[in-house]
């Protein structure tokens, strides 16, 4: 019983960490592309900034789906 509870906690923690690898990597690539695009064409900076924010929020939304699953695991098991 203790082993199972510990494994659930471990799974939740590792899951959250893996989720942030994907989310952080994706948003970093987005930011890099945005910087490059603004450097190439400074007058499009406003458009690019708006698109960057929206796309970053989408990626973060997907990451948070995984975080919600991990929270469900971690907080709904009897410690």
């Amino acid at each position, binding site marked *: 019983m203790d082993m199972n509870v510990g494994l659930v906690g471990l799974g939740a923690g590792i899951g959250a960490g893996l989720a942030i690898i994907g989310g952080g990597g994706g948003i970093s690539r987005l930011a890099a592309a945005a910087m490059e695009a603004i450097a190439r064409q400074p007058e499009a900076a406003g458009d690019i900034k708006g698109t960057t924010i*929206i796309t970053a*929020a989408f990626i973060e*939304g997907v990451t*948070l789906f995984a975080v919600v699953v991990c929270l469900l695991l971690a*907080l709904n098991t*009897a*410690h």
Partner: protein
Amino acid sequence: MSLLSILIAPLVALVLQHAPAAPVMPQGQVKPPVAGQPAAKPAPAGPASAEPAQEGVLDKLQEQVEHVEESIEEHEPGEHAEHGKPSPSQIFQTLFKHLEPHAVAAVWFGGSKGVGFVKPYPVDAAGRPLHLEHDEPVGFQSGSELNRYYASGMGGGWGLLIYNINTVQWMAAAALLVVLLLVTRSARRQAGQAPRGNAYHVLESIVLYVRDDMVYPVMGKDVGDRFVPLFLTQFFFILFMNLFGLMNLGHYGGTATANWAVTAGLALTTLLFIHVSGIREHGFFHHWKNFIPHGLPVFLIPLIILVEIIGMLVKPIALTIRLAANLTAGHLVVLSFFGLIFLFGSYAIGVPVLGMSIAIYCLELFVCFVQAYIFTYLSIIFVGASVHPEH
């Protein structure tokens, strides 16, 4: 229709919040911290054990008391022995309870008194609340508990629990009406001149942004003009609920949008807008036929229908979870930083914790605006796709 959206979302939330077990509710058993005796203090060696028969029981107890007193004096408040310290999971489960909705009032219908307010927590014979937590009474955990408690005393009838998420939604709706009506009324009174006043300018910049940079690019000017009030209402409603979650409104406050029932209510209103606007635009049957693109081989149509129906259902679910998870995550991080104070058990950790909490709080403020923007922008895209299918 925009006023209808203010009414529909809280009603749907009222229905959904009575579903069992919201996702981020800790259900685990919280063990009370082990108090009292110090764990495994070794038996006093030396003179006491050498002459057990001669020293009476009282002397042995006296020595134990002195040992305990010495141990208390040795340790500073920050580094006490292991016995009194709560475990990390206990700390965080206790802190995260602040994110759960709690009942603030209860309405009883029927019974001997007709309609009236009843106490949302059980009381003992003297009228004092039975369960207290931090001097606040702990209310009923569900509507059925309320009904079971009061049905016999009131001679039948049925009760409804009002939670803090309900009151926050009403406060946000009231703030919407008050702010928008007051600001636009003062602007209209200065007809003929350029409007002045800081509140007007702030509101105007946001309203123009929603209209010119969110609705018009997606829907075009003529179609967009019909939907601008709708999305303005949705944007400001979500924004005010998010911002109220950052303020301390006492017992009646909380983050309404951090609760999946509230955001599901908002997402279901978006789903309603998608279908109602599509049906009003194209007629009932043609709206459903628009789900299938033209020029498709006939044998693919069942598959496409299945995929489109799944897509139609997944979009509001994604809206729900995105908004709820973003708002909850910020609060969880701030609460976790506060938990560090209890984990270390010292006062010195308070200063860096305060700094980190303020930094995350500023990030949360930014997230409030961005999430309201994202929710509204996605609603605009979905409604635009239903009004103008680009197949």
